[in-house]
């Protein structure tokens, strides 16, 4: 059935027949159609079921404002998009789409029972009913409501497409390429300004695409449009972005644009991004976003076949599709007449024009008479007829909002409604521009901009082609001197709800079509005491659907205003928020999908670890080898083996992620004294010291071993995760507190690969490989640093130990890291060299009672709490945090102190984070005195060990404490945190 396709009308290629499937049925369309226009050409109006009542719905509009015709667009697994507006879905050969929110099918939907029992679902019904029994909410009510009410099902498969993003800059961004936007772009681009023109549609032109009869500057509109676009294309400084929606307008003229790249293409190239987000910083924004026609609110205004008059004009003049054969027009605005005339001229019977206004311009009446169209003024469609499609309307005369005549019936297969125009001020509103109410058009228009933005054309309330073109050109810096054949745009009235001859409690006059909100719902909300539109909106959900109330907001406001008997300005306007239209998550994510979401920093040795089966763990942005399981070992077995091998032979560890900062300058030591608690002045070049850094609050913030390479040069190490904040804090103090110091800070974290060798064989392994450094204990004592070469590569060699064993940390320029690592593994074969990961490193350090900042400290631990008062330079006059250490509460007793714990049962490894109580058998809530911070199985001691912070813990040494766990309460004794080799003799093996 193609009786609705009008030859000689429209812009699409009539000869190019393509095929598509809707709800499993095959249809014919034309290249250039949207799904909606193609279905209409086949006489199909019914495209969906409504959100709440499951009422049959036909297409209402022809653009992105569509509230009814939401479909699921299926391009195969991973490419299923629900809730696509049929009016914006471009047809291609083989397209597959489905209707939504119905079962078993679109024509017979079981859920329509909701419509019959709709009196049970008034506004806010879910807050009133379903409250009892309470337990039913989660298991029964909520899932059932979810299943019955709603949109298309969310896709279950992961999105297989990829998305792109880009930053752009321009002098002028034109949002919307209708006549005003094109005129603005032509003028703005003449001077060489960088101009971006974005339009959500596949073709630029806006309203010009459906007004071919108009003449602009002596040319037919389509010719003018074609030439204008050619001019813009020819200008190097212009970027035209069709299929690109400006989704949001943010601070400082920063806008988000989503460009759709593949959804319309028949042959999908999987290498091509589906969408691209343009993040644009514009010097000036010209908003030419047009306006959206408003439905009229009357009984049965949602019947399939009832649609916006402007949409009918677009379908006819742009797509060559008549929306019906016998069309009635219901209007309160002159603009509908032009549509009726276009339809009539295309051979469609116009059954009647029903105009609510008492008088209609004589010019329009004359035009109607010429076409033999009857016009009834002061008339109203008081109800509609038909089930899955409109079959007729009942018309009555009206006076003062009351029906005064018996309704008469006329047959029609389509009813157009024209309730006036709503300027699209969404983007202007995003940018925090203020709006003002214009009573004469019954709408808000832009008032004061908050950004360098200009609204032109219909979105500014400037209706009419000539005025819009002129306003656009002037905003673009040109002169607006257009002449067009367009007649005066005309006037209209905006209405609240229109009267019906039926019991008003039994009818439904829809305001928000997508969320199924009726005029009655809004009135109910007002009766229940909601006075602000923001509250009415949330109570009724009007304007809260994915269309953000593009066709409903102003009708809702006006109904509320009438019910409250207060002016619209007092009722208020709802706030528009980005995005303008529903936007895919993919577009927001852009290139940063999957692995690209966040960087995974890898050391130069990471590749070796991966090839050798390491299990990794994330440490800040780095990934670090946690352990190296062999032959099916679990973590416990691997760590036990790695610990033993290190304590008995030699272990090798990648410590490259440690933060490193080079502090250079004559005032370097002075700066170090101020930043760290320890004294640095007397530290000789070539020696190292453990450094402790506090925050201003006096709590431990970071630590690390620091080597003095020369009088004016320190090699500072920080924790892995702390590197950026330590450098930032140092720079902050240097620049703001001590700018007089001659010292500079350079991050060298990534300059050096760091390989730690720990174990009694470490020196023997290293000796033959190192040049220029004497390794004997006498000339290279513990806590010393030397510069020389290893296998010919420059090195900073530290003799330090985080394990309690003889230890060296070899720093080499990072690109050599892996090759040196492999050379050491090879050289160490004879010593049983064993690579170990962070888990073993943690165990070895815990056996020695060395803290990990962030694990054994939590931002409330002072040096004394950690038992590290020895790290404070007693004679120092100042350092960051010093003053805080004198605060009364820091000095008071009762602070949590770091201690060691030994469980009575040596096999119990406590859970880190477990709470500690002083006595067993307390009733809940127990009095907690601390918690476990570190807990491991110690292979060296053949038992478990733990560290904890406990109130006044040091004074409790030797006492029992209790750790209540779900199944059992464990008992442990407080001890020193140095579990292994307390005298430190193992550092001195020769």
């Amino acid at each position, binding site marked *: 059935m193609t009786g609705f396709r009008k030859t000689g009308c429209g812009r699409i290629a009539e000869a190019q027949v393509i095929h598509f499937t809707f709800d499993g049925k095959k249809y014919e369309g034309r290249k250039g159609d949207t799904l909606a226009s193609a279905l209409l050409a086949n006489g199909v109006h019914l495209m969906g079921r409504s959100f709440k009542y499951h009422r049959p719905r036909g297409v209402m509009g022809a653009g992105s404002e569509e509230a009814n015709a939401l479909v699921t667009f299926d391009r195969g697994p991973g490419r299923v998009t629900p809730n696509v507006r049929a009016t914006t879905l471009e047809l291609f050969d083989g397209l597959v789409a489905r209707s939504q929110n119905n079962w078993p099918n679109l024509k017979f939907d079981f859920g329509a029972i909701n419509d019959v029992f709709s009196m049970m679902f008034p506004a806010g019904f879910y807050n009133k009913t379903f409250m009892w029994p309470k337990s039913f909410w989660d298991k029964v009510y909520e899932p059932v409501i979810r299943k019955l009410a709603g949109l298309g099902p969310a896709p279950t498969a992961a999105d297989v497409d990829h998305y792109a993003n880009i930053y752009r800059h321009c002098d002028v961004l034109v949002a919307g390429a209708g006549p005003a936007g094109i005129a603005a772009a032509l003028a703005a681009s003449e001077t060489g300004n960088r101009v971006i023109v974005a339009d959500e549609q596949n073709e630029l032109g806006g309203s010009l695409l459906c007004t071919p009869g108009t003449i602009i500057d002596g040319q037919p509109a389509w010719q003018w449009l074609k030439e204008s676009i050619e001019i813009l294309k020819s200008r190097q400084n212009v970027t035209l972005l069709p299929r690109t929606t400006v989704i949001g307008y943010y601070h400082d003229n920063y806008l988000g644009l989503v460009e759709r790249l593949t959804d319309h293409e028949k042959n999908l190239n999987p290498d091509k991004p589906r969408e691209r987000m343009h993040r644009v910083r514009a010097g000036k924004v010209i908003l030419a976003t047009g306006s959206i026609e408003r439905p009229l609110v009357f009984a049965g205004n949602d019947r399939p076949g009832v649609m916006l008059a402007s949409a009918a004009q677009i379908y006819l003049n742009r797509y060559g599709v008549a929306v019906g054969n016998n069309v009635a027009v219901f209007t309160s605005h002159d603009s509908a007449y032009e549509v009726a005339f276009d339809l009539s001229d295309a051979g469609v019977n116009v059954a009647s024009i029903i105009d609510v206004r008492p008088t209609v311009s004589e010019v329009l009446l004359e035009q109607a008479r010429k076409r033999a169209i009857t016009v009834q003024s002061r008339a109203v469609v008081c109800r509609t007829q038909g089930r899955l499609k409109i079959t007729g309307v009942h018309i009555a005369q009206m006076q003062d909002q009351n029906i005064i005549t018996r309704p008469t019936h006329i047959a029609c297969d389509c009813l157009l409604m024209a309730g006036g125009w709503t300027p699209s001020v969404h983007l202007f509103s995003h940018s925090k521009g203020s709006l003002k109410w214009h009573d004469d058009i019954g709408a808000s228009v832009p008032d004061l901009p908050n950004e360098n933005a200009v609204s032109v054309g219909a979105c500014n309330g400037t209706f009419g082609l000539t005025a819009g073109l002129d306003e656009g050109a002037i905003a673009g810096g040109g002169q607006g001197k257009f002449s067009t054949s367009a007649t005066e745009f005309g006037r209209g009235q905006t209405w609240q709800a229109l009267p019906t001859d039926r019991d008003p409690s039994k009818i439904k006059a829809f305001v928000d079509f997508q969320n199924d909100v009726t005029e009655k719902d809004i009135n109910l909300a007002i009766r229940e005491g909601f006075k602000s539109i923001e509250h009415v909106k949330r109570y009724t959900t009007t304007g809260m659907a994915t269309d953000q109330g593009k066709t409903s907001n102003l009708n809702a406001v006006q109904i509320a205003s009438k019910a409250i008997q207060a002016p619209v300005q007092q009722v208020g306007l709802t706030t528009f928020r980005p995005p303008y239209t529903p936007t895919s998550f993919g577009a927001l994510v852009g290139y940063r999908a999957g692995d690209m979401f966040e960087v995974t920093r890898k050391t*130069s040795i990471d590749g070796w670890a991966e090839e050798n089966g390491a299990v990794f763990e994330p440490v800040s942005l780095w990934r670090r080898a946690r352990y190296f399981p062999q032959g099916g070992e679990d973590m416990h077995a691997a760590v036990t083996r790695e610990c033993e091998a290190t304590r008995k032979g030699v272990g090798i560890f990648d410590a490259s992620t440690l933060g490193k900062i080079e502090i250079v300058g004559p005032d370097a030591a002075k700066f170090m004294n101020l930043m760290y608690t320890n004294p640095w002045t007397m530290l000789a070049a070539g020696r190292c010291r453990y450094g402790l850094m506090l925050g201003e609050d006096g709590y431990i913030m970071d630590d690390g071993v620091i080597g003095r390479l020369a009088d004016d040069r320190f090699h500072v190490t920080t924790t892995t995760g702390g590197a950026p904040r330590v450098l930032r804090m140092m720079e902050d103090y240097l620049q703001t507190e001590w700018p007089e110091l001659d010292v500079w800070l350079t991050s060298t974290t990534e300059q050096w690969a760091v390989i730690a060798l720990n174990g009694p064989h470490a020196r023997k392994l290293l000796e033959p490989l190192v040049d220029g450094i004497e390794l004997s204990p006498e000339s290279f004592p513990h806590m010393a640093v030397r510069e020389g070469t290893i296998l010919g590569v420059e090195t900073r060699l530290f003799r330090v130990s985080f394990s309690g064993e003889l230890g060296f940390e070899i720093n080499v320029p990072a690109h050599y890291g892996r090759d040196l690592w492999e050379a050491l593994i090879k050289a160490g074969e004879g010593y049983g060299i064993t690579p170990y990961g962070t888990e073993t490193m943690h165990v070895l350090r815990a056996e020695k009672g060395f803290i990990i900042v962030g694990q054994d400290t939590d931002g409330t631990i002072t040096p004394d709490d950690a038992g590290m008062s020895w790290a404070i330079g007693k004679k120092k006059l100042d350092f960051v945090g010093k003053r805080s250490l004198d605060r009364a509460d820091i000095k008071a007793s009762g602070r949590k102190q770091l201690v060691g714990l030994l469980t009575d049962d040596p096999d119990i490894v406590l859970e880190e984070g477990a709470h500690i109580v002083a006595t067993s058998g307390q009733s809940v809530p127990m009095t907690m005195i601390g918690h476990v911070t570190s807990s491991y199985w110690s292979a060296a001691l053949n038992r478990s060990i733990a560290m904890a912070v406990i109130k006044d813990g040091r004074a409790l040494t030797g006492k029992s404490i209790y750790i209540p766990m779900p199944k059992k309460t464990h008992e442990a004794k407080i001890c020193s945190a140095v579990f292994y080799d307390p005298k430190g003799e193992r550092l001195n093996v020769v």
Partner: protein
Amino acid sequence: MLSEKNRTILFMDQGVHLAPIMSGETEADGVTLINVQVRYSLRFKPEDRVAVQKLSKIDLPEKIGVSSIKNDKMVLCLGPDEWLLIADLSRKEELQQTFERISSKFVCSVVDVSHRNTGFSIRGPYAETMINTGCPLDLSIRVFPIGRCTRTVYESTEIIVLRKGEAEFHVEVWRSFAPYLSHFFEKFMMDVSVPQRETGGGK
């Protein structure tokens, strides 16, 4: 520093491996990883700049965001007292001698960051756009002319961008961020290598 006789047997690996698509179609376009170079972060007082320049014979731009490029040596002024010098590996010994001279006469900080950074050369008509996929700066030639350099971001990664020619950029990034950055470039190269869309003017 290293004399001929104890030149190392160890290999250097910058840890970045670019997909073939990155090399572009001609010499004039594509992304390449620049071979290991020497890099120094030079810090000294702005008032010493002219004297240091005279002594070192290294061009030290005065204005932040300006670079000097001479033969194989680039100096980028990144802050009021901060310069980044990038040069061919063969310059290492000569530069170290120069820095010793400077250090003995001026209050300064010279830190070797050769292996901290990796450098990418990005060339071709899409160079600017490619960097703009993640870098929010206006890189058009009239705002960001040849020789202009800056420390900025690419997505959440810190980078340094230097414009070497109308369609040629040098991008520096810390070593462990380099593979991540290059993956973005790779995705972009895949996108631009598919046929361009029919509509749309300009670039």
